[in-house]
């Protein structure tokens, strides 16, 4: 049993490393991908292209606009003479936000009357629209508050006695990722998904290749047991997967400063459970298909939902209620949660016990199903 297993593992590794393209896919590609994804995927929204339609032409209106554009959030790309032009400008994609200040803005303010300002936001990129809208609105609220303070101070002077103005003061403090760097959010997720891509597709293609080249026939007339065959087909890739995991965590730490606050041992332990589930599903696919091309197609077909329903891009909580329980069956989801929790929040095994348990159960189920299918269909 052991001799046969070692022979299989040795052969898999020989074949894998004899093919330079596979080595590139296995090791170089993940690191390149994590770098590209880490740099390209930004959740932060800043420098929103902004057009200003100042119809008031007063020092007050100019001051309001200057304040709006002062931070990183908005970048002025031009001015419009009239507010009516705003829709056309948004339509042509000249800006994502148009601030319209109607005539009489300053007059209303000096008289102490409500003054209106209009923000038009391009909603086609919903994330950007929400962030831009929030930034604009909170700026406007800040401005209103300043106006109120000024009026209260004036009132106090008039009455000769202080007038108290009680407002709520909100002081948000962001933990674990204080600068809200999106790389810190993404890199652990990217690591989980890369591991999925690399090991799932390679395993799915493994048995399919033996079928395609006819070597499976020759293997099946030997006394090899199906258990040995399954182990021999997955152990090498589990090993490679853990190496890739190490490389990706290292790349994340060095390049993006993703901290490794929790235990590395826990990361790799969870990684092993995750690989059990992923390799099991890869094996399941490879037992079902006839050739490598089918395996590849099937792999990509399953890849997209597995990644999108993992919470690696968008939170699971934002998904429809009926869909959320289904994501519990997705190993990527659990591993992404573990990676984020352990790397950023130094979570312990006890903190992520439910995810670890889910991975273990999924792993056993997938692997069990794969073994059953391989035994039935091949051996």
């Amino acid at each position, binding site marked *: 049993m052991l*001799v*046969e297993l*070692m*022979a*299989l593992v*040795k*052969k898999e590794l*020989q*074949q894998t490393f*004899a*093919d330079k393209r596979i080595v590139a896919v296995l090791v170089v590609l993940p690191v390149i991908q994590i770098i590209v994804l880490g740099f390209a995927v930004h959740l932060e929204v800043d420098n929103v292209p902004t057009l200003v339609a100042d119809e008031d032409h007063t020092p007050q209106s100019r001051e309001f606009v200057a304040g709006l554009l002062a931070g990183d959030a908005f970048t002025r790309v031009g001015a419009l003479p009239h507010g009516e032009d705003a829709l056309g400008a948004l339509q042509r994609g000249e800006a994502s936000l148009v601030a319209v200040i109607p005539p009489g803005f300053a007059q209303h303010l000096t008289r102490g009357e409500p003054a209106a300002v209009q923000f038009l936001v391009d909603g086609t990129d919903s994330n950007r629209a929400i962030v831009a809208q929030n930034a604009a609105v909170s700026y406007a609220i800040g401005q209103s508050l300043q106006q109120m303070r000024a009026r209260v101070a004036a009132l106090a002077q008039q009455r000769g006695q202080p007038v108290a103005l009680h407002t709520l003061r909100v002081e948000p403090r962001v933990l674990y990722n204080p600068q809200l760097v999106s790389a810190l959010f993404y890199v652990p997720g990217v690591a989980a998904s890369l591991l999925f891509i690399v090991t799932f597709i390679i395993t799915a293609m493994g048995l399919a290749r033996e079928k395609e*080249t*006819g*070597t499976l*026939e*020759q*293997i*099946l*007339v*030997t*006394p*090899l047991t199906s258990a040995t065959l399954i182990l021999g087909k997955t152990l090498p890739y589990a090993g490679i997967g853990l190496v890739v995991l190490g490389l990706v965590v290292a790349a994340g730490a060095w390049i993006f400063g993703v901290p490794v606050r929790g235990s590395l041992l826990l990361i790799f332990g969870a990684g092993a459970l995750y690989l059990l589930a992923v390799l099991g599903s890869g094996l399941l696919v490879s037992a079902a298909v006839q050739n490598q091309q089918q395996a590849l197609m099937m792999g990509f077909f399953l890849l997209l939902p597995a990644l999108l329903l993992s919470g690696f891009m968008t939170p699971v909580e934002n998904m429809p209620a009926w869909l959320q329980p289904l994501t519990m069956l997705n190993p990527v989801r659990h591993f992404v949660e573990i990676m984020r929790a352990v790397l950023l929040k130094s979570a312990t095994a006890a903190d992520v016990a439910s995810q670890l348990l889910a991975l273990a159960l999924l792993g056993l189920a997938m692997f069990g199903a794969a073994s059953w299918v391989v035994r039935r269909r091949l*051996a």
Partner: protein
Amino acid sequence: MSAAPAIEARALAKRFGTNRAVDALDFAVQAGELYGLVGPDGAGKTTTLRLLAGLVTADGGEVHLQGQPTGKRSAAVREAIGYMPQQYSLYGDLSIEENLSFFGKLFGLNRADYRERERRLLEVTRLGPFRDRRADALSGGMYKKLALACALLHRPRVLLLDEPTNGVDPVSRRELWDLLYEFVHDGMAVVLATPYMDEASRCHRVGLLHHGRKIAEGEPAALVRNFPHSTFAIEAADRDAALAMLQQRPEVIALSPQGAGLRVVVSGAEHAAFTSWAALVGGLQLAAVAPDFEDVFLGLEALADASSGVA
């Protein structure tokens, strides 16, 4: 026969959908015998070998090894049988030595046994000098010899060969046959599938397969000797016209082109009727010839078609 056959098929049957690939097939091969499963592509040869090797489950019937029934993928089958598939079945990206060593380990050979057998197999196949060459860089003949070596590593008592000389040059082909005769001489039972009549005639015994059924069995020479029908070589000025005419004749069982002329198998009972018809028509030069193995096969196949086609 006193001893139980080395391998025996009893009423073996396998269907793929509505296609009966193998249909109630019976045959037995003794130790030291070279048995040919002969038939055109699609006759069920490969499926039969796969059934014998335990790679597919039979829909009916049994395979017996030395008188013992076997199950699919049973340990006894895998210990006793060596199988060489028709298509490529080795790792093209591994060398001769790596392939041998891999299969040696899968067969559970210990190091000393493996070394000894590897040396001996490389010697008889004369692959020794190429041991580091990748399998996909080997010529057709060398590849087959390597596949044969891999199938022989565990010293099987029964060797199943699926069109072993397909894509092999004539010299290597003769070498392969010499090797086979050697193994058979040493007591191995060999079942060989082939569509080639010249190869079939080199087997000790053959079973003619047609649509998954055995339509005849015996020593090739005896099959020819006992063939009850007549064969004619026919020359005609207008071969196409002659062909059209002959196809209409009820006496003609099988018809094939031969050189510039035609070769026909005529029902033995209607031999006289046929010659007088030919004389009447004129323009046909008839020469009665001794049937060869190919005539026998074509004749039997056409007769089997005729009897099943009407039904």
